[in-house]
């Protein structure tokens, strides 16, 4: 339903905005990763593209970092939805966004 989509989208933006950034606390980072993974897996496939298009360049780079973090610690069925997120994020961010996941000094 449209209401549920709106909530998922809002949760997504909140998770992106409140990413710990330069925080060094491992606990904080893991909490953020967990939250982000929950939000990403709660999306329906058809809603992903809209969510990705609502991000700016930095947002797409951050999303890509979380996607790869999600790949690192797979849960039941998480990789399938993450791969769909990856496809949409790649279409917008290009290979450059993946390069920046690999070269980043500050990880998520």
């Amino acid at each position: 339903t449209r209401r549920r989509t709106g909530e998922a989208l809002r949760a997504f933006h909140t998770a992106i905005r409140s990413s710990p950034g330069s925080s060094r606390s491992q606990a904080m980072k893991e909490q953020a990763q967990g939250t982000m993974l929950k939000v990403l897996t709660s999306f329906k496939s058809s809603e992903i593209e809209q969510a990705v298009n609502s991000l700016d360049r930095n947002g797409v780079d951050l999303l890509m970092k979380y996607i790869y973090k999600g790949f690192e610690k797979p849960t039941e069925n998480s990789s399938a939805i993450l791969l769909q997120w990856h496809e949409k994020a790649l279409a917008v961010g290009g290979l450059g966004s993946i390069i920046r996941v690999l070269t980043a000094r500050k990880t998520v």
Partner: protein
Amino acid sequence: GIDWAPESNRLVTCGTDRNAYVWTLKGNVWKPTLVILRINRAARCVKWSPKENKFAVGSGSRLISICYFEQENDWWVCKHIKKPIRSTVLSLDWHPNNVLLAAGSCDFKCRIFSAYIKEVEERPSPTPWGSKMPFGELMFESSSSCGWVHSICFSASGSRVAWVSHDSTLCLADAGKKMAVASLCTETLPLLAVTFITENSLVAAGHDCCPMLFTYEESQGTLSFGGKLDVPKQSSQRGLTARERFQNLDKKASSDMANASLDTLHKNSISQISVLAGGKDKCSQFCTTGMDGGMSIWDVKSLESALKDLKIK
């Protein structure tokens, strides 16, 4: 590394043997003169200064050797710029005032140093990068990139410097805006070479094997992607034979039509871009060389007429 001094027609080369040679033409033979760089790692890059009375060498010794000719001893000597470089210097470019030198390094930073040598030149007048320029003075240091700085370039006026790094970003520092740095996270693979072609336009290329245009919008302090410059002509799509389809299925697990070879002119990464004509402010021709051993010359006017969306400011 190698560089040519067009006015005095001399070459300078530097190598992994930790030496540099200045080559002068005697008749039709090039005669080398050894220059001791006093480094204990490979030399990576070398550039003649605009007045051709000095050259700078970047090396794995984490320093820059500034070399000049000492008349009394008939010998090239060098001074070192060390602080605060923390890793290999990959690229160098001189400011038109013959004193300031930009250096890109593997420690992710772009820096501008003074390479003022009192033995060969007058004290420089103030520039937007600063007024006091004793030898080795750090005039600017970047903080934004997270990748090795592969290439660095001053604009023709010297008031802007641009660099590309391995995290697929292009950055530009504008001394006219208090050294504000504009950066662009590109969608491409890392760029390896960059040059200004006007005061606001840059051409960069790298692992995508294709030169690309970037534009600096001074009023907003932003960089934007202006388009690829190597647009292959539409080749006719011929159908796949049944045999080719089966081979694709066998090799790649897909009977996709996608071409495995590159459509671009260069078939491997472009490692260098050189301005051939028009200077960095009104470039009319530039040259790209790549790891495919190819060298291509690009004509700016032809590109502008062929690629209708291209806007070079």
